[in-house]
Every structure is written in structure tokens, then in C-alpha cells.
């Protein structure tokens, strides 16, 4: 799932979450956006939509790994936390594939 601002929507993108107007569904999950739908969305008071695809990461993979090490500093001796850290590292690496 990827969060994009309404200005960046392009025809062909597929909604991963429905767009609501009040409590009713305006466009459902799975809808392929066309020009008309996009221009109507732009006239509504909505800032973002969630579409298919992977989220663009705000920082590089190397930076993300450095931050991970910082969060786990002084915890290298704990085998359990080390294990969790490895799972998180794999998870983060997967976000950049």
C-alpha cells in the first residue's frame, strides 16, 4: 500500500482503501482511477489516497539501518533483542526491494 497526495494521483492507479464522503463510500477499494475520478477527488476536501504499490521510503536503506543500530545501542548483549533486531532488519531491507 502506498500513500499518495491527491495531486500526485495518476490514471491507472488502483485504490487500496476506499475513499469516503462522510460515512458513505465514494470510491471503493480496487477501483482503477480514471481522469474523471481524479478530477472529482481533487475537488473534494481530501489530501491523500492509499493506492496499490509499495510505499516510497522517506530515507535511504543505509540511513534506515543506521537508525536501527542507534535504537538498539547498548542492547547487543541481549540475545532476545538481538533476534528481534534481526527480524526488523530483514523487514526494513524488504521495504527497499
Amino acid at each position: 500500500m502506498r500513500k499518495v497526495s491527491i495531486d500526485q494521483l495518476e490514471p491507472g492507479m488502483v485504490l487500496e482503501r476506499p475513499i469516503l464522503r462522510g460515512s458513505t463510500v465514494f470510491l471503493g477499494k480496487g477501483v482503477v482511477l480514471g481522469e474523471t475520478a481524479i478530477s472529482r477527488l481533487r475537488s473534494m476536501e481530501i489530501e491523500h489516497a492509499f493506492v496499490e504499490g509499495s510505499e516510497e521510503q522517506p530515507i535511504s536503506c543505509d540511513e534506515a539501518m543506521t537508525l536501527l543500530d542507534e535504537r538498539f545501542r547498548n542492547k547487543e548483549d541481549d540475545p532476545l533483542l538481538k533476534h528481534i533486531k534481526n527480524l526488523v532488519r530483514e523487514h526494513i531491507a524488504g521495504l527497499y526491494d
Partner: protein
Amino acid sequence: MTERIDIRNMRTRTEAINALPTVPSALKQISAMFEKPRLSIDELSGFISGDPALTSKILKMVNSAAYGFPNRISSISHAIMLLGFNVVRGLLLGVSVFDLMQKNIAGLWEHSVGCAVAARCIAQKKNLQEPEEVSICGLLHDIGKVILILHYPREYETVLAKARDEGISLFEAEQSRFEATHADVGSWLARKWRFPVNLAEAIEYHHTPHLSRQAKLETAIVHVSDILVRARGIGINGDMLVPDIHPESWTLLQLTDDDVRDILAELETAASEAEDL
């Protein structure tokens, strides 16, 4: 060296939340309502429905990935029916402190929503009856931080600075300045507001889960959720560091590596949604 702040004084002050000028009036009204010995479903639902902004925030929350009923809940009474009285009460409190969290500790709201998501995910994996209630424990576990800031703004600034400068956890920094921590303060209020005991204990013992007596499982879930959310670096709740893990909690939950991968994947979705809630 300044004097440590006494625990009795803290408890009295915390519980007198309605008298505090810095507490927004909406939160005071909610606090007064929660203190009533018998709060009916109609009263709760009427209170929320009378405020369109609150209603829409709560409906957004229950229809988000954090609660797993995407776009199926259209009214407050429907939410109470599906999720339960205490869950909606907890959500009301959560969304009401949202602004305070945003204003005072950057990232605390994202961290809280992350914990709500992780806690619900673990509760479902463990086949708990009420995963949404456990999720509320995650959402509100750090509420004591907001309350401490409101009551002791100057002192809490020094605590935040100390945690930052010395690279210690906020929990440790609080212990050096106060006789009680955000965990105690949060649980005092949870009890005063008549929240269920599992919520009060999960808040009270989320850093010391081995001390919980009546809600070991929920407390372990919040403890582990807190660690996973920080490990992933979602939101910052006053300090960046991953806290110590209590092996008993981990053993109690018996999470497999695949379980942890699932939780991390759910967190990814929820993190991008949290900004919109």
C-alpha cells in the same frame, strides 16, 4: 540538584485533573463523565454524537486498519455495539488527548497508534476474546506522559532533556525526578475513570510486566508491542531507544518469527494511516 517530587502529592494532583487550568475543557468534560458510577450507553453515545468533530475522528479510527473493521461502522451506536462500551470509551479518551500528544511530545501519537495495531494483532494471534480491548491498552499505555506534562510542564521538560542528553529511557529519566512514572500516573487515572482492571494494569506495568497480577497477558502484549513499535522506529515517544525486554513476557506470548513479520507488516500500513487519523 532539585528535589524529587513526592508520590502522594503526585497522586492527589493527578486525580484532580479537572481542576487544572491547562487541561482542555473537552477533556475535563470527559473526565467528569467517566467518574460517574453509572455511565449508560446512551449517555456515552449522546456525548460523542453531539460533537461532529469527535464523532468523525472516532469513526475514522474504528474504520482504519488499526481496528480492522474497514468502512463498516457508520455510527457511534454501531461502534459501541460491535466494539463494546469500553473500547469506544477508550477511543474517546485517545482521540481527545491526540492534540495534547501532538503538541507536547512529537511522535507520541504515531507511537500510540502503532502500539494499538501491534497489540490487536498479537491479541488476535493469541485468540483473545476481545482484541479491540487489548488494542485500547496499546493506544492509551503512555497517557501518563501527557498528564505529567500538563501537571508538571517545567519538570517534565527537564526529564525529556535528560533522556535525550544522557541517552537513557524516559522511564528511567522520570524515576530520577519523580517518585512515580508515567506508568503509575496513567494507571491512577484509568482507575479513577473506571476503566477495566486489565487496562489499568496494562498501563501500570507496561515497563514492569512481571508485576502484573490480574492482566498478565494484556500487559505482556503491550510490553512487547511497545518494543516492536520502537524497534521499527515508528513515532518517538520521548526517547528513541528500544527498552529492555522482559523474557517472561516474550515466553508467555510464544510469538514465532512469522508472527513478528506479520506484526511488522501491519505496522507499516498503520504508520502511513496514523498521520491521517
